[in-house]
């Protein structure tokens, strides 16, 4: 069971540098340079910043999907190797179109190849239920709405039971209402899991509502403009966004992001 497992690891980025060689010319694109940032065990951190600031790159570096150009990333404790679950923004291309919802949710465990067929099916059923997709087990992704496809992706990553959850603008392509519903459900689910979660977004409201802590990044090369603790403990969205502390924060972040590129 999830609750009996070891605590989720803390993550330390030390002097992290990431550059890309631009194809065709000699220019080197510096996404971040010497970035120091730590995430505590079991913490839900939202990372907010302008498009292209390198916030998604932080997740890819931590997830090992792209190599570091410099610096280091460490987990604490460092062994066993943490299981990392990734949720992508592009849900349509993140799911296997040839697999039903049930099989897609089993995909992480199937790749891992440890759990038996029936264990996989049980885990999938549990998380399909948790994200409210029961009744759609045999549907194919293309038969589902965007919000439902993103629920499938969420169930898939939860069924894998990751120690660290990396979410890359997961609700960025959804309509406002669906996004709102999923934000509230996600908050509820994550509250019960106690995992280290990094959630990247460019939506200030979302970042403040979801995060135990919010890190504000500048335009690239990414620097930390602000690092807040959650301002208000209520998880009811309407109450949260109508609180004074929220509005004060919202303006603060808004000003930071607006002035960001000019003083860079």
């Amino acid at each position, binding site marked *: 069971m999830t609750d009996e497992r070891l605590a989720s690891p803390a993550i330390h980025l030390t002097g992290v540098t990431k550059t890309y060689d631009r194809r065709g010319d000699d220019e080197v694109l510096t996404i971040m340079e010497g970035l120091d940032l730590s995430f505590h065990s079991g913490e839900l951190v939202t990372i907010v910043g302008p498009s292209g600031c390198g916030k998604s790159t932080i997740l890819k570096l931590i997830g090992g999907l792209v190599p570091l150009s410099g610096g280091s990333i460490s987990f604490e404790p460092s062994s066993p190797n943490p299981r990392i679950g990734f949720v992508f923004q592009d849900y349509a291309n993140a799911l296997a179109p*040839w697999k039903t919802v049930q099989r897609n949710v089993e995909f992480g465990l199937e*790749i*891992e190849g440890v759990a038996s067929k029936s264990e996989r099916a049980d885990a999938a059923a549990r998380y399909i239920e948790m994200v409210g997709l029961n009744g759609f087990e045999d549907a194919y992704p293309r038969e589902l709405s965007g919000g439902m496809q993103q629920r499938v992706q969420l169930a898939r990553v939860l069924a894998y039971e990751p120690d660290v959850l990396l979410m890359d603008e997961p609700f960025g392509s959804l309509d406002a209402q669906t996004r709102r519903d999923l934000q509230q459900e996600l908050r509820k689910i994550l509250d019960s899991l106690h995992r280290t979660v990094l959630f990247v977004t460019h939506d200030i409201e979302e970042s403040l509502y979801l995060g135990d802590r919010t890190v504000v990044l500048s335009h690239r090369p990414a620097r930390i403009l602000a690092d807040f603790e959650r301002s208000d403990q209520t998880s009811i969205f309407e109450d949260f966004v109508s609180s004074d502390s929220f509005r004060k924060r919202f303006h603060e972040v808004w000003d930071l992001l607006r002035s960001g590129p000019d003083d860079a």
Partner: protein
Amino acid sequence: MNGAFRFPGLIAVAVILTTWVAATGSGFVNAKFIPPPNEVLRAGLDDWANLSSATIQSMGTALVGYGIGFVAAIVIGMAVGRYVAVDSWASGPLDFFRAIPAVALVPMALLIFGNSFIVGVFSVAWGCFFLAVVNVVSGVKHIPETLQDAARSFGAGEVKLLRKVGIPSLLPFFLSSLRQNVSVALIIIVIADMVIGLSGLGFYILRTQSNALFGRMYAAITIIAIIGYAVFQLLEWSQRRLFPWWSDSVAS
């Protein structure tokens, strides 16, 4: 629902056959050069021994060439689609040789191989390969990057990635190109038969034409049409059956 209108294709075939019968019966066309369907059927049955052996010969050769061309296209296409280094070396020669129509190579193949079976296989394989390899390469490039990232984040290495993401994504592309290759294989084998001039349906058509056995000629043409149609339908049916999630729009 009206049963007949669910199959407008069948009605169209019936209309064509009726027009054929009417045109030949009324003397509107010369029945000597275009005999009515019953004549064609009778002529085909009369010469069934020769006609069937020519059919088996041509189709057997075409099938072997089709298979070889296709397997080669999968192997090379996947390597080209996946590895930039292979792509940069292979794409030039592939584009150049693709421009050569397979039928233009039949006389050369005859010089080199001498054996009519090998010449047929070579020509069909050549044509099928170059059509399919383009499909396979584009299929590999269509495998969603995000899904590959997802599989990697769950710990998939290169082999698992191929097995769990690559092959399943590509299967419908394979079937699509198998379908497209049916007509190519038929065209090439018929022309190869004609050029080699020894046996097979293409040769049968030439010989019956020059001997004024027009009924037999049409019988051979009809057999080719029926085989092509049947194989095409079978592949289309399998695609719908095996890959219900697939839509052709993904492939184009």
